[in-house]
Structure formats: C-alpha cells, structure tokens
C-alpha cells in the first residue's frame, strides 16, 4: 500500500509542474496586468511602469517563473498584490470555509440520493421511479445562482429563518454560524443530489439485471439483503467515482454560491483575484486546487476496495 501511495504521489509531481507552467503562462497571456488593474484609470503610464518593475513583471518570463517556483518550494506563496496579505494563510483560511460547505453538502446529498435512487431502481417503472427521475432531472438543470437566490428570498427574507449575509453569521460562531451555512449547503445539496441520484439509480438497475442477483433471490434471501449486500456494493463504485469528481470540482470553487450568500470562500477569492490580475493569489489558488484534486482522487482510489468487491479481489 505504501508503495502504491508513493507511486501515485510521484505521478502527481509532473502533473503539478505542468499545471504550474500552464497557469503561469495563461495569466500572463491574457491582456491586462496587476499594475494596471491595481492603479486604475487614475494612474499615469510612468506609475504603472514603476509598479511593474517593482513587481518583477519587467523580467523575462522564465526568470519570473523560476523565482515563483523557488519560493513555492520553500513554502512562500508570496503576498497578494491587491491587499498585501500572505497568500498561503489566506488560501487555507478560505479553503476551510469552502470545504466545510462542500463536504457537508455532498455528504448530505449522497445520504439522501443513494437510498432514494436505489429505491427508485428497485421499483423501476413505478410512479415513484418516474417522479424521482423527473425531480432529479429538474434539480440537475437548475442554475446554482438562481436556486441560491430563490432560497435566499424564501428562507432568508420571507421566513427570516437564516441570516442573509454569510459574512455576519460566519463571524459569530455557534448556531449563527451553522445557520449561515444552511442555505449555501442546501443549494449545493439540491443541485448535486440530482446527479448522484441518477447515477446510483442507473447502476443499480444494471446490477439488478445480473444473474447473481437472480441467484440470490432464488436462494430465498430477503430483498433487503439482496439490495444491501449484493446490489449496493456492486452498484456504488461508479457513484463513488462521481462523488469524488463532484467533490473535486466543488472544492475548486463555488464562487457563484459564495457570492450569492456572501461567504468568503476560496472560489470568491479566486474570481476576485482573476479580475484584479492578482498573479500570486491566482497561481496559488490554482495550484492548491490541483493538489486537492490529486489527493482527493488518491483517496477515492484507496477506498475503492471497500465498496467494490471486484477491486478488493
């Protein structure tokens, strides 16, 4: 297992290097630079040139890249151009907030969608199945900003159950903090539930057609045992992969949801940094998202044997 882990981590190194080069070059390829974005239309060309020189943006690109890479390797992600804050603590603080929302939402979405999807597969073609498919398709097609605003209007404004501004709730702790997270979690939960539900339903239907299921039923096993011990373990593997992908994608940024609910998460930090061409923050965030993705995939792969009997063998 340790060899497997070391091997997988070693394989991630070239991926991260390629990503670091790509994000470095992409940021510099797009028009606009941090000096211009920072000073705005009040600046003079001389002031912009001076700031660029100070930022090292007048150096050749390879020099800029290797200086940045060297700093990263020593744990120095630099400082934000916009605010002067250290990038690494800034990213970690924001990541914690996003991760709390994403992990909770995906966990709850899975907890709700998996039994519902399996039940729908078990009752394939029934009114329950059809309505489950219809609802999941509807949820899948909802844009997150629209759903977020509707939830905000109903639960935040009309009913007044939860704080409208995440920034205030997050800073107060206790129940207020939990209350501030409920609406963004609910938004993500509803959207992601649709995809998980459809996936588990489809794979369960496929598994239920297998001969070993017929065999298990012929042995006189209860439907509960058939579904839990035989169908679920075989049907869950693709859903597990999907959950991993969803987690990876969402941890990379839920900027829209964070903006609607005023949550200071990683996604909002990244989007704002792109607007202001805050190179150290953008490069740091992308690299962090890539590392998260790699580690998450590794974790998913490691847990496969737990769920998939074929892999365990």
């Amino acid at each position, binding site marked *: 297992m340790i060899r497997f882990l070391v091997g997988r981590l070693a394989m991630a190194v070239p991926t991260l290097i390629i990503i670091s080069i790509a994000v470095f070059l992409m940021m510099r390829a797009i028009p606009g630079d941090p000096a211009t974005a920072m000073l705005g239309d009040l600046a003079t060309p001389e*002031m912009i040139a001076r700031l660029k020189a100070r930022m090292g943006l007048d150096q050749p690109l390879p020099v800029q890249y290797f200086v940045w890479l060297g700093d990263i390797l020593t744990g120095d992600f630099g400082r934000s151009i916009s605010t002067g804050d250290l990038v690494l603590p800034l990213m970690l603080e924001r990541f914690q907030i996003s991760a709390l929302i994403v992990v909770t939402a995906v966990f709850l979405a899975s907890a709700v969608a998996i039994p519902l999807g399996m039940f729908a597969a078990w009752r394939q073609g029934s009114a329950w199945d059809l309505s489950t498919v219809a609802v999941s398709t509807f949820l899948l097609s909802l844009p997150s900003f629209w759903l977020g605003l509707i939830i905000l209007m109903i639960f935040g404004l009309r009913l007044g159950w939860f704080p409208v501004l995440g920034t205030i709730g997050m800073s107060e702790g206790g129940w207020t903090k939990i209350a501030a997270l409920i609406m963004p979690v609910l938004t993500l939960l509803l959207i992601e539930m649709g995809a998980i539900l459809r996936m588990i339903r489809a794979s369960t239907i496929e598994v239920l057609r297998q001969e070993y299921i017929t065999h298990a039923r012929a042995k006189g096993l209860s439907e509960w045992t058939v579904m839990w011990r035989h169908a679920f373990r075989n049907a869950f593997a693709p859903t597990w992969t999907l959950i991993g992908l969803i987690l990876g994608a969402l941890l990379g940024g839920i900027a829209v949801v964070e903006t609607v609910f005023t949550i200071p998460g990683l996604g909002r930090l990244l989007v704002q940094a792109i607007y202001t061409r805050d190179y150290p923050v953008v490069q740091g965030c992308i690299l962090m998202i890539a590392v998260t993705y790699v580690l998450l995939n590794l974790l998913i792969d490691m847990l496969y044997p737990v769920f998939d009997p074929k892999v365990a063998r």
Partner: protein
Amino acid sequence: MNWKYMAFAGALLAAGAVQAQEPVQGGILKLARTSDARSLDGSRQDANTDTVLNHLYDPLVAYRADLSVGPVLAESWETSADGTTWTFTLREGATYHNGKPIKAADMVWLWDRYMARGEKTGTPWLCEDVFNGTSNLQVNDVSATDDRTLVFSLERSDPLFLKRLADQICHIFAVSPDNVDENGDWIEGSAIGSGPFKMKEWKKEQYMALERFDGYLPVNDPASGYAGDRTAHVDEVHFVVVPDSNAAETAILSGQVDVVSQLQPDRIADIRTKGVEVLSAPGLSLTAALIQTQDPLMQDVRLRRAVAHAIDLVQLTEVKTAGLTQPNPSGVPLSSEYYGEEFAIWPEYDPAKSKALLKEAGYNGEKITIEANKHYTGMYDNAVLLQAMLAAVGINAQIEVLDWAAQLDNFFSGKFQVSSFGYSQRTDPVIIYGMFMGDKSTSPTAQWDDQAANELYDAITGEADFDKRRAMLVDLQKMMAEQVPILPLYYPPVVEIVSPKVKGYTTWSLGQPRAWGVWKTE
C-alpha cells in the same frame, strides 16, 4: 374636539417630531460595501478603502456636499499674496485615538512617507504625480513651523491646489507615527488615527467594526460632505462586505444592514415599494464612449460627428439612470458650480444629419468595434444602446466584450476603436477635461489631442478668476462639440438605499457613505 385641544395635540405631535430628529447616541450602523478595505495605511487604495480611512483619520481639508472645500483637521488656512505659500492652522486640542496630541510635524512625516512610497515599495501614492510637478502643480516643500501650523510651498500659484488636497484620493490625514515600527514599517492591523471612529475589529472579507472615539474634538463648522463636524452618534459602525447587489438588497430588507450604496438605478422603482428610503444625488463619474481619433476610420471628424448625431442622449440617459439625471456631454458635472446650459452644447440627435455626414465621409459599412466589459454592467449596457442607435443610421458597430483589466489595459495603450468607458469620479471640471485631454504621443490615455484646445486648457489651469475660468471652459466645450474626440454621455447618479431606522443620513455627489452625524431609532 375644540380648537384648543387640537392646537395642544398638534403642539405635542410637533414636539415629538422634533424630538425624533434629535440625535440619539448608541446602536450599530451597518454599511454594506462591495469589497473590503485594501489597507489601513492607504498604501493600497480604492473607493471602499478611502471611505474607511476617512472614518479612522481626519484629513486636513475635504469637500463639502456642494463641492466647495471645507475644514476638517485644519480649522483655517490662508495663502500668500503670490499664491505660492499655503498655511494651515490645525484645530486646537485635537488628539489621536491613543490620547496623544496631533502635531503638524506628523503630517509632514506622512507627506514624506507618501511621496517616498513609490521608491520604497513600488506602489506609488496615486497623487504623487498630482503634486510633484508632472502636471502644473508642484509642491516644493511641506513644513511644520509649530505644532499647529503646516506650510505648503508651491513652485508657482495653482488654483487647483486646495481642491487637490481636498480630494479623498489625495487626502493628507492625521495619522499617528506610532502606527509604524522602528523600521518605519506599518504595524499589521494598527490604525491609530484622529477620526470620529477607532478600530475595534477587522475580519477580512467579512466586516470591519469601528467604535466611536469619545475623545473626538470636531471642527467648528457644520457637517457637510466629508468636511466640517464629524461627531459620531452611533456606538459602532460596521463596514460589511457584500459583493453581490441582489444579496445587498435582500440584506437591507431583512434588516441585516442599514445602508446600501451603489444601487443600480433600474432597481429603484421596485425597491421604493419595500419600505426603505431611496436617496439620490448627481454623480461625478463621467460615463463616455471613448473614440480613438488616430484610428484610420475614426480620425475623420465627419464620421465622429455622424456618430454623435446618431446618439439620442436623452433616451439613453433616461433608460440608464431611471430618469434620475439628465444627459451631460461635457466635462462639467451637474453638481458643479460651473455648470450651466452652455455645457449642453453638443451635436443634436438627428439621424438624417448623421446619414448625410456618413455619406459625405464615404462610409461604406466598415465595422466599428465597441469595447465593453460585463464587470461594470453599465458600460456593457451603454455599448448595447450605442450599437442599436448606430445601427439605426446604418453604422456597422460590433461589441467586443473584454474583462475589465483587459479593457483598462487597452485604455492605457490607446488600442481601441471605440470603448464604452466610465472614469473614476473627479470633482473639478478642469480635472475632468484634463483626464481626457493631452498629447497622445506621450500619453495614450489622452482622447482629445488638439493644439488649440490644449493651449486653451493650459490657460484655464492657470486662471483663478471664477468668471473668466467659466467662460474659457464654455469655449473649450464648444471646441469639443465641433471635434467630437470623445462621446461624453452622462454622469451616473449616486443612489443609496437606507433603512427607515436610520436618521440623519444623507447622500452626496461623491457617494461615499458617512457614519458620523447619523443615529438609529432602535
């Protein structure tokens, strides 16, 4: 009910109304802001940062609501006969938040720090070029002759000096030297100032909480704009970060914030029905379509005039500002003391004349690209309206959507044909004309490069007499209307929404919220 009883009841009601208008101490005022402050030492500036700094630190002088210059820390000032020496007297007894007295030498220290910042940190003070002689204004020396007297020595007399000093971007604040360590570096989180509020807590990207400075000694001048008496009544002011305008609206309706600034005018009609107060004032940010006059196509003045005749400014302004302001194709804002009907001089909306000019110029459907961005939706909306109006006279205009940083980059390099743009707010007409005039070969941001116009502009900058200056500005506007080097459209109004619990809050042309002089009824 007899008349005596009615009179008594009326007197009671009137007294109650008066009492309700009396400031009450206490409460927390929550102001929604689109972004967090960037710094506490002014090393990184934007409008939100300037607002916070003005609550923590008192500037020497500042703009009143009518855009005249009023006192804040300086209780008076005088200028020498030749206009090259300005002497400010600081108000007596003023102290910092830590109780130490404010000294004129502290402001000299801050001035030197600001002017040296570009060299030291690479992030120059945005007003360095304003005062260092790059433009006409040159400050040779700033000195403190005693604890309360600050003297500015100029190279030559400049009528704009005081206005520049009153500009919130160029404020010289009373900032305690105790904010820096032995190396001269700003201590993280420190904000020992002289303003009506002092730092309590800053949760970055969430909110900044300031508490009332009970030792604040106001200047003896009525509160107006950023100037005058800045006495605070609320216990605390919170600057809450709410980047999304929909969320900000929801927050004020649910009572989680008390004031929302920078509301889009198209939301006014709906929001008025929901029990909050809508305040509005004429704005100072020129919205314009920039024209690259060196472009092979756009260099033809007949084509530019055809474009101007094709634009229905009244309709465009009505649509974009919900009727809160009027078109203004000049460098003189409506709230300026210089404004008058003469500044409405501009090629009138006349599609027939536009078509005739297009024919005369030999225009044959060549594509004209209008740059815009969706970060500032107003600029994009203007581009769409311009495109439609130009299409109506047969001009093939296409919109190219960039992101803001890219469009700004093109602005600085002059690489565009037409650009739907919005300038930052400026207060004085001379400064506004100056931001789009000049020599394109040395300053690509200059839109209007004409020798006669530049000479007239230089003459205006040296003219101190109001009437003469105004007459010269009118001549400049006439020249601009002839040459159409830029398409000024309007100045978006400042629109703020305020909770009914908040009393004493007013809005003004600069649009910067002020938590002093405000109280809450709960």
